[in-house]
């Protein structure tokens, strides 16, 4: 059974406006790779050049931030809810 990825508003432009996507992946890293293979434009927004999660992106499995549970190796149980939470600031960017 796949996991349910919740896509934040700020990244829906890369997922054809989809807010929830059902994806396969035993770990957070594998799950995000299946997302990137469907929507390659999202890759630089999630990962840096070395493949690490960017500092303004948090991923939660259930209520837990994966930064504290093994990062991209964090296991994802069948049917789990995985949420991407980016830094947002609103307003006029760059002022």
């Amino acid at each position, binding site marked *: 059974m796949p996991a349910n990825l919740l896509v934040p508003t700020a990244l829906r*432009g*890369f997922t054809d406006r989809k807010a929830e996507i059902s994806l396969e992946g035993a770990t957070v890293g594998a799950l995000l790779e299946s997302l990137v293979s469907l929507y390659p*434009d999202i890759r630089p927004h999630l990962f840096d050049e070395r493949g690490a999660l*960017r500092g303004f992106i948090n991923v*939660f499995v259930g209520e837990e931030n994966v930064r504290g549970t093994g990062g991209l190796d964090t296991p994802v149980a069948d049917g789990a809810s995985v949420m991407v939470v980016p*830094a947002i600031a609103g307003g*006029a960017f760059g002022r």
Partner: protein
Amino acid sequence: MTGIIPDGRLADLTREELVRYSRHLLLPEVGVEGQKRLKASRVLIVGTGGLGAPLALYLAAAGVGTLGLVDCDLVEASNLQRQVIFGTRDLDRPKTAAAADRLKALNPGITVNTYNMRLTSRNALAVIGDYDVVADGTDNYPSRYLVGDACVFLKKPDVYASIFQFEGQATVFDAERGPCYRCLYPSPPPPGLVPSCGEGGVMGVLPGILGTIQAAEVIKLIVGGGRPLIGRLHIVDAWLMRTVDVKLDKNPDCPVCGKSPTITELVDYEQFCGLGDDRGEEVPSVTAGELKSRLDAGDRVQVIDIREPHERSLFRFGGAVPVPFGQLVRRMDEFDPSADLVFICKIGQRSLYAIRALREAGYGGPMFNLKDGVNAWAREVDPDLDAY
């Protein structure tokens, strides 16, 4: 949990105040003592915009004794869709002055201090130091990190909310009791990566929802009690009307509030957020006038409109190939590498990032950015079209 206002600062309530605040006094969790704490409290609201408007209105109504308002902007017509503290007659007035007038009319018993300026590394500690609580309603990353760091150094709670389109986040950063802003977001997005509300839009009521959540958190911190949003991030998607709470942990390696901090004073936040880098020079650009001449001359130019479909309907750019920003890499095979591609968006920001993203994905053909976007085209080339 006790409130953050020391007993020594409390003063009696007047007879008028007992009447005005009676609905608070009836709550056993607030009562006369809680209302006295509100009266003695000093709250700084940074940013008098979409979030600052409901924050200031509700905190003034609630009897917060001293409110500080920081903003350097004037009221613009496009603010009025959500910044409900202003009216049409306030257009072109400084936001702090217009807001102060409204707050004094709402509650003449409180003091409103206005700071018609930008909060910077030079003035932030002095301004924030005068207050008990900071509510951050700013609209940019440098200010977020500045407010967050300053609150850690001064040991003040930073009541945080931010919004984008239909989604908002709220929490209370209090490094004495939980994580700080940098624990959650160690580094900011590079400029241009995340579109602004000025480009991406925002549902007008969204800052109303998040700003009132901030006001509730401020009141709880002052009165003491309840369950503050410390160590939790409250996420609201107003389009799906779905709210989610996730846990936030303090990062023991946080450079500001961790066990061995490496940042112990305010820094240059524009530089930290990459705004000092002139990366724009890497990307060749054309002005609206130049693009017009090249199109008229029949040059081999392919215009790629990276705006979203609803934006294109606001302003049609004839002859352009529509490929939304979020599909560029997926669809780069559709581009003609022997033609000069000119990327267009609303103001020339997203198109810059589009070109960088395509380069990183390996596209080899020549690419140009339409400087200042289709809004410049509307101003300089085709006055029949309206900028939006």
